[in-house]
């Protein structure tokens, strides 16, 4: 079970996200995407799958910003993962979830000693 801080978009930290198992991540109230060094999706939780309307098996294993999230494939999001090894930033954003412009908050998390970068999405 996730702890109270882990369920909070602003408070959860990258170690906790990385240590969680799939069931715990799926239970979080916000979308979680874990990316490897090539920005290929390794983690895609059930919450995010519900927001986007696409099951994890269609997203995992493919370059995330090219195949699933071109709306973030710019200097505001994808470029930051490429440029900044240490990252913990919250930015307001607009996604096209199910082709409707949808205001969200994004949290970008990265640290060199953690193998995955995390992108959190709060609707």
């Amino acid at each position, binding site marked *: 079970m996730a702890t109270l801080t882990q369920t909070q978009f602003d408070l959860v930290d990258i170690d906790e996200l990385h240590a969680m198992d799939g069931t715990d991540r799926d239970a979080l109230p916000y979308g979680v995407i874990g990316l490897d060094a090539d920005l290929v999706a390794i983690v895609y939780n059930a919450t995010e799958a519900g927001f*986007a*309307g*696409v*099951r994890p098996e*269609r997203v995992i294993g493919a370059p995330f910003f*090219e*195949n*699933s*999230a*071109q*709306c*973030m*494939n*710019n*200097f*505001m999001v994808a*470029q930051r993962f490429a440029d900044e090894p240490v990252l913990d930033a919250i930015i*307001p*954003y*607009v*996604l*096209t979830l*199910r*082709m*409707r*412009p949808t*205001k969200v908050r994004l949290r970008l998390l990265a640290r060199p000693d953690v193998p995955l970068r995390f992108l959190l999405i709060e609707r």
Partner: protein
Amino acid sequence: MTAEPDVDEHEALLEFLYACPVGLIEIDGNGTVGIMNAHAMKHLLPLAPDGDVGDLFGTMEGCAPELRNLWQGFSAKRGMVCDGHRVSVDLGAGRGGREPLVLALTVVKLSAERGLVTITDVSQQVAHERRLRQAETWFASLIGDVNDYAVLALAPDGTVASVNASFTRQTGHLCDEVAGQPLDRVLADAARPGALCLSDQLCVAERDGWCLDESWQVRLDGTRYWCQRLFAAQVGDDGRTVTGYSVVLRDVARQGGGDTTELQRLLTCDHLTGAANRGQFRRVLEREHGRWQASGASPSLLLIDIDHFKKVNDTHGHPAGDAVLRQFADACRAKLRATDLFARIGGEEFAALLPATSADEAARVAEKLRRTAATLEVEGGHAPIRITASVGFAAMGEAGSTDALMALADQRLYQAKRGGRDRACGPELLQLA
């Protein structure tokens, strides 16, 4: 058959739209966004400073103000409003060393209340075309005795240095007769209103690298022919001075309506005002930067913004606002030299790029344009509409790069706005009342 779409099918369709490498947007009659895909958001969100992309025309206002005009001016019930219309997003160098971002927009009107827009990133294509055009200009000037092409070499002062044999075939004039003559003795000068005279065309070739024009020419025997001309400037080994010009003349059968002047206008001018568009502004800015690096001739840049323009639109309506923009642009262009470039770079924001112009001279021009705005009267129903404008100006020599020049002029424009508007701001020692 079920009424509900199959879940797998629905998911496949979403996945397809997320991955589609072209932006797709559905708008209503006012430009309000209904549906859009991820690729469209990738490009639109960075253009919307407040993160609100709900109004497509509003989002594009900063770099493609003409989009609203194109949509509103399209009177047919349905059809193609624009096809691959190019929008220069970056005016200076591109972000992170990439090519400057250029988007191509296609807008289809499905009904009065519904439109479909596609957005494609064509930055690479545009860069490729630019390189190709440079190569073509070179090839054209190297062509020897091909019948269709007469080639003149000009000295830096514009007198004819030499001509090739097909020049004699095309015009009837012998080489010896024309050598040493000024160009306007050899070629007929422009008679059309608004056309550039020959000496201006050389100046434009010097500024842009090339200049394309066409007009009637008269042969020695008195017959006339429609002549396309390409002027190309040549720069010496030192990369500084213009060492001469090549002029290529083509005898072409004139085709109804579509002359190159019209084509050039479509590619380089703003739809509403006839001022240069952002694309043309970016190209000339880059070239002027290159020339400043090579020769030290610093151009000056003026950014001009009409004060409280939103109020004009709100009070008098968009058509009246459009008339203000048109007349202001016309009045400004009339005050500038043929070699200055006057461009519309945003909704009510204009730029004047003045080649080889000191800050002192730029200050005089800035003041002239400010006065032009303050004395302009545009027909507005009950009473004439009056406007003022704020100007920020800077010289390339102070800034060092195109981006820094834009930023410096913009900072001074902001200073002029903050100082009460209807004023011009430049380098500190040159502040104007």
